[in-house]
């Protein structure tokens, strides 16, 4: 595992970039535990201060320190996306494995269901749910909600992988030597799909954070909890741009951009790592 990360880091620029940025962001998220300010309390600092030594990224119109607020925002947004990622992974793996391995009419039913979830525009439905639940939508609830909606595409990817594995010879060998279905899936197939799960997991985290930002901007999540979305929401709603308080709006926007790009790069580099052709190239590079 660690040696894989090391080689990836050395030979894949995308992975190196993504990994470095994510590490920095995680470090910032950890810093939030040492924050001198409570993110939910207003007017702890003077308002609208531009960046200075005391407040490295300035302060907001509500008297909060932007830097420390951002550390909380990163922590909460990452936390939410991890909850969503875990729940959607469980559903996606279950659906993908069952549909791919069992096949037949069960596969057809599951995939029809699955495709429906892919096609349905999720945003209006999430907006409807969020506005019914308004106020009750804290980080954990939102993470769970997004988890239940974000599995469909990945279930399809896992299923097609299982379909191709099922036709491979080692499946017949295992089956004929009396291996149970559950252990074929767990011992033989899972190692093949773990990297695939990782790559789709990154994409799902990206999607969850993006959805949170969207819902928060529409004012549909718990706005007193600092996340990247609520930070943007407050700064847009307080007309920070018109007032020229650019440090307030730019901080969450730039963090978002870096977070999205780095997660995407990680996902892409893991997919490339899986691709046998790029693996050949990598061996050539390593030989040189």
């Amino acid at each position, binding site marked *: 595992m660690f040696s894989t990360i090391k080689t990836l880091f050395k030979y894949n620029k995308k992975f190196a970039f993504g990994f470095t940025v994510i590490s920095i962001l995680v470090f910032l998220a950890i810093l939030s535990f040492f924050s001198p300010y409570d993110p939910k309390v207003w007017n702890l600092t003077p308002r609208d201060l531009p960046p200075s030594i005391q407040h490295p990224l300035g302060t907001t119109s509500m008297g909060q320190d932007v830097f420390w607020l951002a550390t909380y925002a990163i922590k909460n947004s990452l936390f939410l996306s991890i909850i969503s990622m875990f729940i959607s992974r469980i559903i996606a793996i279950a659906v993908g494995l069952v549909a791919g391995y069992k096949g037949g009419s069960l596969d057809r039913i599951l995939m029809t269901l699955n495709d429906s979830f892919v096609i349905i525009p999720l945003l209006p*439905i999430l907006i409807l749910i969020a*506005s019914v639940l308004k106020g009750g939508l804290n980080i954990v609830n939102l993470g769970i909600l997004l988890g239940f909606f974000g599995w469909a595409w990945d279930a399809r990817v896992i299923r097609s992988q299982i379909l191709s594995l099922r036709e491979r010879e080692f499946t017949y060998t295992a089956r004929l030597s009396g291996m149970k279905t559950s252990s074929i899936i767990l011992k033989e197939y899972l190692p093949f799909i773990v990297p695939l799960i990782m790559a789709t997991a990154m994409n799902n985290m990206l999607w969850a954070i993006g959805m949170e930002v969207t819902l928060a901007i529409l004012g549909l999540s718990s706005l007193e909890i600092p996340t990247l979305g609520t930070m943007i929401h407050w700064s847009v709603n307080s007309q920070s741009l018109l007032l020229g308080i650019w440090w307030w709006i730019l901080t969450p926007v730039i963090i978002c951009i870096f977070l999205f790009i780095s997660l995407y790069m990680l996902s892409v580099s893991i997919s490339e790592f899986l691709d046998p052709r790029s693996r050949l190239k990598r061996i050539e590079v390593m030989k040189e």
Partner: protein
Amino acid sequence: MTFFKRYLLPRIIQYLVVIFIGTTVVFVVPRLMPTDPIQQTIERVTMQGTYIDPDAVEELKETLKELYGLKGTLFEQYAIFWKRLFRGDFGPSFAQFPTPVMELISISLPWTTILLLLTTLLSWVIGNILGGLAGYFSHYRWARILEGIAMFIRPIPYYIVALGLLILFAFIFPIFPVVGGASIGSEFKLSWNLIIDIIEHAFLPALSLIIVGTSTWFITMRLIVSNIVTEDYVSYAQSGGVSNKEIVFHYVIRNGLLPQITGLALSLGQIFSGALITEQVFSYPGIGTLLYRSISTGDYNLMMGITILSIIGIATGVLIIDIVYPLFDPRIRYE
């Protein structure tokens, strides 16, 4: 006949299932909530401070009861829900009582449809051509640069791109009008000036949708083409002396388009969601802005109407793409 049975029938079933699941989710969600949705909604509406007709409140209670399925047994409520749906009746809007929801939606719908159709088609065409070229000529420097740019734009959500453009054009280069669909007070007579006005207002929302869309299609197309390039028929054409232009446009891109058409069908819902948000950023007078207004006024009927109609609209779009698909893929046509 086999074409109908094998290809068309599953698609039509899928279409019906999508609509069924979508509307059922809309029906079920409010009932799963622990709180009393009717009381909550009325509280929220009155909390807005806007004056509401007492008649409207009564009507609101009634329609909410019906919409949330609190009249009769569960099955009866579900039947009523569908009956209303078939009539296209989503009840009156609460915020603009007694205007029917359908009327409000039908005013906004053309704006969104035109914007969405235009940007989706444009970005799909541009993204595929550029992606195909970059995939085929992948050893060139410009191909790598294009790929790098697309890589950086692709993961950024619509909202952030729209916000970035807003910051850029509103404060740094104030060329385009930043909000609205047409200048305030302009008459809706078909004239050259009006058309120019509308195009100017639609420019920024369209641009942000095209930027994100193009880079998404670019990346998938490049990946598809980089696989196609290794196929035997490409090397055969190359060694046979067919010109590069011919190979790219007649062999490579044409084959690469097939999975992209399927991809277009599958991502229509996501594109639509993105357009909703983009409209809201630029206050473009389409469905997205209407939806935002319904959120801020607690207008449930409107929200439900928009949700169900958008599900039906997207599902229909997907079905149309599926029906058109055999025109491009001879393998299905002649089966």
